[in-house]
């Protein structure tokens, strides 16, 4: 059993206008096998939390801690965090010129496992996973994310999730921009990644439709850099029906 623990996390970014605080004391603990959904209005800091866990250099941690089974995640380099078992499916995956999907997947798998995967089984694993995610075989020879459509990028993120088998997966709006069929395909991919029920999942989303496939154990409402309310799956339905009005300061509701 593993635990990813975030305690009283304060994060800011440096902007041209100076330092801008974004996360204001987030505390959240995720255990192996648990699925946590985070919902909240645009700009409330959800992606900031995800990127900070992954170690994006833009975000400055002012105070608080992130630990993985007691180990200080904030002291680790970005690549070390990934090797420790953290995976971030990005909201906006970037294009990598010059690197084919095949080459990228093999290099990443080798880095994460500390040894090269057995060629024959690896090739088959990749092929099978691509087929299940309805990714056309020719994507293997294309450059990472280059010219991929929005939905193709998301599928490529989940392909990696399935192949790298992390301890904790953070899915930042993986469902946004997917058509109904793709949503089902991608959700099934996430569930396959958690086949043995040991992956912890932090699912950032604006919509309850993905939660019909991936049942959350906990739902957190994120407002203005903090968790404003927590509950079970029923909270998600209520948010979808009512919106976030009741969490926002009165002035903003006008």
């Amino acid at each position, binding site marked *: 059993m593993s635990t990813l623990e975030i305690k009283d996390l304060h994060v800011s970014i440096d902007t041209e206008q100076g330092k801008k605080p974004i996360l204001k004391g987030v505390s959240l603990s995720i255990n192996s096998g648990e699925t946590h959904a985070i919902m909240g209005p645009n700009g409330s800091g959800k992606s900031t939390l995800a990127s900070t866990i992954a170690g994006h250099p833009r975000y400055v941690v002012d105070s608080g801690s992130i630990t993985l089974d007691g180990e200080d995640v904030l002291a680790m380099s970005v690549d070390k965090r*990934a090797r420790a078992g953290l995976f971030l499916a990005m909201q906006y995956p970037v294009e*990598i010129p*010059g690197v084919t999907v095949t080459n990228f997947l093999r290099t990443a798998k080798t880095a994460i496992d500390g040894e090269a995967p057995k060629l024959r089984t690896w090739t088959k694993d990749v092929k099978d996973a691509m087929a299940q995610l309805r990714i056309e075989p020719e994507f293997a020879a294309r450059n990472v994310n280059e010219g991929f459509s929005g939905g193709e990028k998301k599928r490529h993120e989940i392909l990696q999730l399935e192949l790298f088998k992390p301890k904790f997966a953070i899915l930042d709006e993986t469902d946004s921009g997917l058509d109904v069929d793709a949503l089902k395909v991608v959700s099934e991919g996430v569930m396959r990644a958690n086949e043995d029920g040991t992956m912890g999942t932090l699912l950032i989303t604006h919509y309850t439709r993905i939660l019909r496939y991936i049942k959350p154990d906990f739902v957190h409402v994120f407002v203005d850099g903090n968790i404003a309310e927590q509950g079970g799956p029923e909270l998600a339905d209520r948010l979808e029906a009512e919106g976030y009005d009741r969490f926002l300061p009165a002035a903003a509701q006008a």
Partner: protein
Amino acid sequence: MTNAELTKETSAASNIRRIAGMDEEGEQLSEINPVSSPLGGAAAKSHSHGAGAGIPDSSRAGRLTSYQVADFPAITGREEDWRFTPLKRLRGLDRLALDGAAPTVEVLKPDAVTIETVGREDARIGSAGIPDDRVSAAAWGAFAEATVITVPANFDGRSEEQVTTVTLTGAGHAPAASHVFVHAKANSDAVVVLDHRGSAVVSENVEILVADGARLTVVSIQDWADGTTHASSQQMKIGRDAKLKHVVVNLGGDLVRINPSARFAGTGGDVEMYGLYFADAGQHFEQRIFVDHSVPNCKSRVTYKGALQGKDAHSVWVGDVLIRKEAEGTDTYEMNRNLILTQGARADSVPNLEIETGLIEGAGHASATGRFDDEQLFYLQARGIPEDVARRLVVRGFLNEIIQQIKVPALEERLRDAVEHELKAGSL
């Protein structure tokens, strides 16, 4: 923080001119620089055209060609042909007498291939090329002797032991002229490597004559020491049903300007032009390609890729493809891609396609400059890949498309090592 500027196709920045029918301009273009002369065979060495008055500088058909340096006006830097070149760093190749010692020549070759050192009066000189800029003409007027490499007819030199390697080692910084002639006779099949090393300030003319039915690969490697200036006009004439693969590799030197131009002498000719460059801080690598389709049913492919790193690393790629009215059935595609690894580097990329007939198989071009930035690095690192591995992954993957075209394993290995070395040297 760099922005996440990504690869974009820049067809808008390029230039396609379509000249329909024999309008006045089309007529005039072909007359000023006719297809048949001087590249049609017997070249008149004193041949010179007018100053190209009235012809737009931007059309390759109208460019002045001459063996006489005096026919070319002094370079100001405002010409289309010279606008990217830092003229100071030509170190006089455009103005001074090129009487310095030419690079020394060492050859490794199979028995059947012959090497000769010949005088200026040799009948072959000028049969495949004519200068089309002042620096090239200056070298033409100044070279003392030429190296002629001849691949005999029907020679089968595909295996790696059969590669001919000509090592041209720079003899210092006195401005010099150099001349190389590569002749692949009918139905031969061979690989010739021109390996430029050492320190030099040199203007070079390379003529490549590929006879009917021959298959030839020429690889020109510029692995010069720092401070070298090298201008090289490499003119190819491709016979009927002949195939030429031309590869330019620019790795070292202060200013390297390679102008490969391909012309066809018979139908069914095929040219593949590849280029790879890796420009470091302060280096200027320029490559100006010209493919002159003047014969029906010929094919050309141009694929150049470059990586740039460091302050004021500068690459220029200009790809001029001209499909003349008589070149029906032409099939051409040209592509340039650049990968900018650090801030302060600059890649200029200008494809120019001029089409004077609609009766072609295909004509296309692509040009794109991508940036390896912090967001890409983050993405790769977030997948467990350490930073140095991530950078190497990107650059190697990007350039490998060209390297693997060479098909000479030892040479491919050397270029892969050179790319690794460049990456290390850039302390990335």
